[in-house]
């Protein structure tokens, strides 16, 4: 019952459908060969790259919690040069539609990365990771400050004038709509909400922190209600599309994000235990309404 086309746009970028792989769990995409048919998905948001390669954090990097996963990967990545030379072409060859996730520790690195992205000549959609909790500078400290969010977004718009600029926001703030508004004011074509929540755990006989950096990022089904709340409110606070991320582990969860008004849904942690989920969601949405979100207007509350 394909009633209308699943395709849609964010700014200048077109997408086959509304189901994306989230940045990080999906790596550079092609690792999932044999498990996920990347050509079926709206987009693959690649692992956040930085200008320089990063080794990531030492020590343990993953830890399960109740219905959740803590990670302290620390943005391990191959750096812009190898990413654009090797990884991105391979992903495109595999038939995927990439959204390139960009991150930086500071303004200078960020400028270099934008320049490298522009020079690569192929980037037509980026997600700015303004919200990684697992690095010392950058990430959260940028992402929690509305003025910096606007500034970083503006710079990306200027450096990549033909690309869709999506700002990924942190939930570790008092009011995420303030950050969303800042991103919109900076010229973002869309925002992604949410990145991981801050959390930690202890382990072993000595009850030592699991992670060397102590704090890590919490993802998975546990955070779904928090993510849905963020998406619901941002949709009602700004006029740009919202890409939903956080805890999707079923077709129903994806539907909820779309019903809340999200333009697209990212699947992250769930691909670890249910790699078929993204394609199941694509199929379910196609069967219904061509993958478009329901036509109900955003409202403030349930009853008025």
């Amino acid at each position, binding site marked *: 019952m394909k009633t209308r086309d699943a395709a849609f746009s964010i700014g200048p970028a077109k997408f086959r459908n509304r189901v994306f792989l989230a940045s990080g769990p999906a790596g550079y995409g092609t*690792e999932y*060969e044999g*498990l996920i048919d990347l050509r079926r998905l709206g987009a693959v948001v690649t692992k956040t790259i930085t200008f320089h390669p990063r080794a*990531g954090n030492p020590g*343990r*990097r993953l830890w399960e919690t109740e219905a959740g996963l803590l990670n302290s990967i620390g943005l*391990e990545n191959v750096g812009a040069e190898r990413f654009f030379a090797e990884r991105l072409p391979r992903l495109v060859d595999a038939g995927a539609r990439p959204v390139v996730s960009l991150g930086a520790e500071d303004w200078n690195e960020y400028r270099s990365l934008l320049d490298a992205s522009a020079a690569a000549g192929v980037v037509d959609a980026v997600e700015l990771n303004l919200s990684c909790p697992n690095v010392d500078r950058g990430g959260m400290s940028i992402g929690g400050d509305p003025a910096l969010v606007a500034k970083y977004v503006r710079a990306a718009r200027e450096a990549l004038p033909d690309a869709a600029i999506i700002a990924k926001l942190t939930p570790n703030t008092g009011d995420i709509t303030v950050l969303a508004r800042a991103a919109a004011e900076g010229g973002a074509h869309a925002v992604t909400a949410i990145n991981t929540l801050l959390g930690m755990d202890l382990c072993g006989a000595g009850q030592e922190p699991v992670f060397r950096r102590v704090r890590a990022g919490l993802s998975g089904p546990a955070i779904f209600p928090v993510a849905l709340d963020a998406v619901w409110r941002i949709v009602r606070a700004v006029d740009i599309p919202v890409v939903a991320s956080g805890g999707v582990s079923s077709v129903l969860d994806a539907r909820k994000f779309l019903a809340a008004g999200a333009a697209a849904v990212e699947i992250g942690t769930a691909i*670890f*235990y249910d790699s078929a989920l993204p394609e199941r969601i694509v199929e379910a949405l196609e069967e219904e309404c061509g993958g478009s979100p329901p036509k109900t207007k955003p409202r403030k509350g349930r009853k008025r």
Partner: protein
Amino acid sequence: MSAAGKGLWKAALRRSTPLSPSCSLLVFERPAGFPDAAPGQFVSVRATEATAPLLRRPYSIMDLTGSSLSLLVKAVGRGSAALCAARPGERFDMIGPLGGVPFPEPGEAEAVFVAGGTGLAPVLFAARAWRRRGVAARTTLLCGAATKRELLGDLVKTAFGTRWFATLDGSAGFRGDVVALCRDLVSRGRMPKGVLYSCGPRGMVRALEETTGGHFAAHYTSLEAIMACGVGACRGCTVPVRSGGASVLKAICSDGTVFPAGDILWEEWEE
């Protein structure tokens, strides 16, 4: 060798046999289309449909025949307990075969296997697979466990030429751990000089390499870590290894599971 050919499968449990108080042998139907695998490769199994435990659980392939896929599972937590409690007929969602680098074959050298606990699984697969293919004519196994009851003696009756056992409490074989046993055999001149293949707890493998590594032509070890993706994407399972002069982080799931034990930077590798 690449992990090409990996896929997502539903595998039906054919039988589950308790081998020790905590370990069970799980024999699944080999799913139609499941590719051949090499020793050191693993599958990652969804132990329950629930969201806790959330992640798949990785298990070394202990054997793979035309019709069956065998795992050796030790119940240590919720996931493994659910697997050990499963009944024949239950179907499990698994991905595999995973692992980009299996145990290299020993060529003409004698293969010496050292296994701690369920580290026996990949080692047993190597011995069986190589015997079937006519390589590794001469094999020695050193197998350790806490007690006689934990020792999986019956499982290894046939696959190895020589077998040595160690138990911590001395209830069977050598009293002590498998590293002490290995050291003992080396010092008494009873240990062949072949290629060493090991799998077991980190501390065991490290001690093995540090105290007896020099005796062998090479020492390959299959490593474990908590894993999320199992395919090299998430970078959650890294181990620092020497590469040239530098320290490089490798993903155990896709750049391993097998590494030359001498390359591992144990000091940097924290649990």
